[in-house]
């Protein structure tokens, strides 16, 4: 419902920008700046097509390629997750963090880092050495999904999920996990390397990502995006309350399950791959809503595309202007997204009052 040509146009523009930004990821950088042809050759070779570049350059191109691909997919997943949850909760303040997904993933990853800590920190930092990045990603995924399922179980009664209870449960569980994380961090305060690994994960990272990471976040995003046609109109109808939606024929319980499942899956995969990237799931759906209104068919698809562009753009800014500073994506997101969002709120206070 709703519609017109404007959403289609914006979607096309975002998709093109997504591709353009991945190209820029290949070329831009603090030390090595290849020409376009070299960058493309390196990227194709990284994807298993064509001849590899010489020596070091190929490795650099591949790192940048997977960084770009992962950044796009992670941004898309987080924004889609946020848009789904805002629609379900009929609350513009809902975001993936409310399901405990971020905190759960961080807890899982921290435990994995603790387990690996005994092997020495180099093992953690070097992607060439064994399975540690995947072990951390795997632990993060289990922690994320486990926390989400736990919160949903606590918040449901007789097979129905109560949204207010869910929000409150999320706050409580988030508080518990924050405490656990602080306990873990203070317990390893003396071990500088482990401490460093924990911290970097907490701030989110796109360094040293590879095809396995891309496959993980990509499949989560793919499966979650599949539900869009079957929940978009339903979420529009949720806007007047669950009871009203039910009277119009919406299978409310089933729809909630689809939405929560998709939001949890995409967010969990993203957080498992890139760590905590706050704010994106909250701010991108808002930006899109300001542009195209409340129709979820446009809102969900454009949030997905917009999330990819937003995180890639942030990453490009970071790599080009703050390269030596090594600001992690989560930090960048807060530094850029926060003030930007405030500015928007300030400008659009009136039109946002409907939410």
């Amino acid at each position, binding site marked *: *419902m*709703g519609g017109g040509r404007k959403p289609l146009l914006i979607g096309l523009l975002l998709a093109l920008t997504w591709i353009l930004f991945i190209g820029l990821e290949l070329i831009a950088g603090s030390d090595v700046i290849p020409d376009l042809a070299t960058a493309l050759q390196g990227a194709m070779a990284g994807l298993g097509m064509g001849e590899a570049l010489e020596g070091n350059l190929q490795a650099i191109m591949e790192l940048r390629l997977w960084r770009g691909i992962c950044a796009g997919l992670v941004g898309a997943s987080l924004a889609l997750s946020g848009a789904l949850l805002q629609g379900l909760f*009929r609350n513009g303040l809902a975001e993936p963090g409310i399901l405990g997904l971020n905190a759960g993933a961080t807890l899982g990853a921290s435990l994995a880092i603790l387990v690996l800590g005994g092997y020495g920190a180099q093992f953690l930092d070097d992607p060439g050495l064994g399975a540690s990045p995947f072990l951390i990603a795997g632990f993060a995924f289990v922690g994320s999904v486990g926390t989400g399922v736990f919160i949903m179980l606590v918040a449901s009664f007789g097979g129905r999920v109560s949204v207010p209870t869910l929000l409150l449960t999320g706050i409580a569980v988030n508080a518990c996990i924050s405490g656990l994380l602080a306990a873990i961090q203070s317990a390893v305060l003396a071990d500088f390397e482990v401490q460093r690994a924990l911290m970097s994960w907490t701030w989110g990272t796109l360094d040293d990502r590879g095809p396995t990471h891309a496959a993980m976040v990509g499949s989560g995003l793919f499966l979650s995006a599949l539900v869009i*046609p*079957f929940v*978009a*109109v339903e979420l*529009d*109808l949720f*806007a*007047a*309350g*669950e*009871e*009203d939606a*039910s*009277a*119009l*024929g*919406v*299978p*409310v319980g089933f729809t909630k399950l689809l939405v929560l499942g998709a939001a949890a899956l995409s967010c969990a995969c993203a957080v498992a791959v890139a760590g905590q990237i706050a704010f994106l799931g909250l701010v991108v759906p808002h930006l899109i809503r300001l542009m195209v*209104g*409340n*129709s979820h068919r446009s809102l969900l698809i454009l949030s997905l595309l917009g999330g990819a562009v937003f995180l890639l753009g942030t990453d490009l800014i970071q790599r080009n202007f703050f390269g030596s500073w090594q600001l992690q994506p989560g930090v960048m997101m807060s530094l850029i997204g926060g003030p930007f969002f405030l500015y928007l709120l300030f400008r659009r206070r009136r039109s946002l009052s*409907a*939410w």
Partner: protein
Amino acid sequence: MVSLLQARALNYAYGGEIPALDRMDLDLQAGELLALLGPNGSGKSTMIKMLSGLLRPDAGEVLLAGKDIRSHHPRERARQVAVVPQVLDALPGQRVGDFVMGGRYAHMGFWRSADGQDRAAVASALDRADVGDLADRLLSELSGGQRQRVLVARAFAQEAEILLCDEPTASLDPEHQLMVLELLRAVVDAGMGVVLVSHDFNLISQFSDRVLLMDAGRAVAQGSVAEILRAEVLSQVYGSRLLFAEIPAEGSAVSPMVLPWRWSK
């Protein structure tokens, strides 16, 4: 007479504790406008939620097409039963046309896209409820009365044969009260069944075929307008602060009129 919807011995208590319905029966026929009358808290709105399958009774059953209403798929149920709610939980940030299109949800196919038939049904429903000129306005820009007519339009767009209306005229001016009731009367005369919850004795008196009087979750009395809108019946439930009169209707018939009356102390 074709029975469209039957409620059998419904019991319900909110949270399992606060009793709302006590052995309620109801039978809605095709081509009938059945008025549900009763004081605040007598269980009328709960009854509407039962009849639309939104609440599960603690005991008893609601039968739609001979089958428990809650065993129908929600979409299938919504093609047969439409609800005009008293209030919405929240006001969607939608335009009137899109909101009324929501009434077509149960008719939409696998991809949930509106076809020509859906758009025609919405246009016709908007016109009949006299809100055709508001189609591009935001719901939040409408007056209370306009919103209420938009809710009626959405229920019409649903093209169900049963219409459950929870105080559809509560915030309408006199002209639009009559207009909405005339609309309901017209669909009833075309064969639909309508359950109307209202506190307005005089609209009920003019438009309904049958009146079911409720109090404390029970059916106190049931019958024609002339049988129910009488001092002996209503005073059991409403006390004595009512004024009764008779207005000449067509031919030699009279129509009862009931007004809240202060009676001097």
